[in-house]
């Protein structure tokens, strides 16, 4: 059975934090694509293990890519380029 609670930590991956409903909340879970499935599906890993997810709403997904998943459906790709990080660096 899939976990329906994950912590609110930005995109929700760590166990041991306080629980929140992943689907009621504006939470997206970071998952890494492990294998492609059939017709718009893939197997992806998060802190909770491997789950089947729907990838029909994200284009050009490949194995190894990090996706943001909400309600069992991948909705975005995680970009390694983050200008925020550079803004943060400026604060150091």
């Amino acid at each position, binding site marked *: 059975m899939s976990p329906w609670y994950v912590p*609110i930590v930005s995109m929700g*991956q760590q166990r041991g934090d306080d629980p929140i409903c992943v689907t009621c909340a*504006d*939470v997206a879970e970071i998952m890494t694509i492990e294998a492609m499935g059939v017709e718009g599906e893939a197997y992806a890993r998060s802190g909770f293990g491997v789950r089947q997810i729907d990838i029909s709403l994200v284009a050009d997904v490949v194995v190894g890519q990090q996706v943001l998943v*909400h*309600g*069992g459906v991948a909705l975005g790709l995680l970009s390694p380029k983050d200008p*925020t990080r550079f803004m*943060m660096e400026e604060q*150091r």
Partner: protein
Amino acid sequence: MKYMDEYRDRDLVARVCDEIDRVSKGQPVKIMEVCGGHTHVIFKYGLEDVLPPNIEMVHGPGCPVCVLPMGRIDDAMALAQTPGVIFTTFADMMRVPGSQQSLIDIKAQGADVRFVYSPLDALKIAQQNSERQVIFFAIGFDTTTPSTAVTIARAQALGVHNFKVFTNHVMLIPALQALLDSPELDISGFLAPGHVSMVIGMNPYRFIAQTYEKPVVVAGFEPLDVLQSVLMVVRQLSQDIRQVENQYSRVVSPEGNMLAQQMIAKTMEPREEFEWRGLGTIPHSALRLRPEYAAFDAEAHFAIPGRHVPDHPACQCGSVLRGRIKPWECGVFGTACTPEKPIGTCMVSAEGACAAYYNYGRYSMAREREQLVHPLVKGDE
């Protein structure tokens, strides 16, 4: 952990707060975080207590459980009690009180109510129980709607006609418009929800900057994301700029997820109007299934009471959701109303402002009370 630790650096938190203090120059600034996820992060990490005292965070209506009127919960209860039905929903909905009882109460009395992680799980239950009607109670803002849309399209493709959806998806932008049109609203700027924006993009917020002249920053969900976004709002105010900025650029693009938007438009259409708890009836603020997908529409197949049910007279969720009062100003906060025994929806979901205050907000409450008391004490001197 990558993408987490770097956004929780204590030293950086202190520096960003110093910068907010320097840029805001002690001017009072009220920022509404629209999303319940942000509210939760603000309380969990005590961000109100590290922000300069002139920065006030106001907790907006972005918790989907909190804004659903009690009448719709009663409707869900009626559907769940229909003989032969398997009723499926997300976990938080189980405890939400209707006018008489909650889904968890009727489950204990024998109704077949199951919670699911994804609407696709509800579709699987329908496939495994072809002799029974399986209803999915769909709630949520723009982040959650795509998963329902994908599921409806798949149900049609697979011909799973015992699958139905009771649709209660709401849209953030009309709610923001209604808030902005409210004469009582006194807000300097907004933090926009990161994952809703991952779907809808940044463009739908532009009217807030252009027409209402308020800064908007699309914000991520780590402590530093939120503080950085506050700094971006404060910078806009200090430089007299009003625009939509993207703090959460590692996820959000200006145009959003076009495939998700297309899937929603294919399967759903706006309702004429929809009642929101605390905000009243807002035109074109919620979605229903398109007629082409009527075979999957619970509202087309079952008799739904559709009653208007007023909130508990003691509950001030409406004022909390509009940022007019803080949760602890509600007369029953923490006494008759607790997360264990909630009277209003804002206390049910961990994203609700009342639950967040109850679970994490004691120190902030003390500080606010102190600030309220101080001027009186000074006045007496």
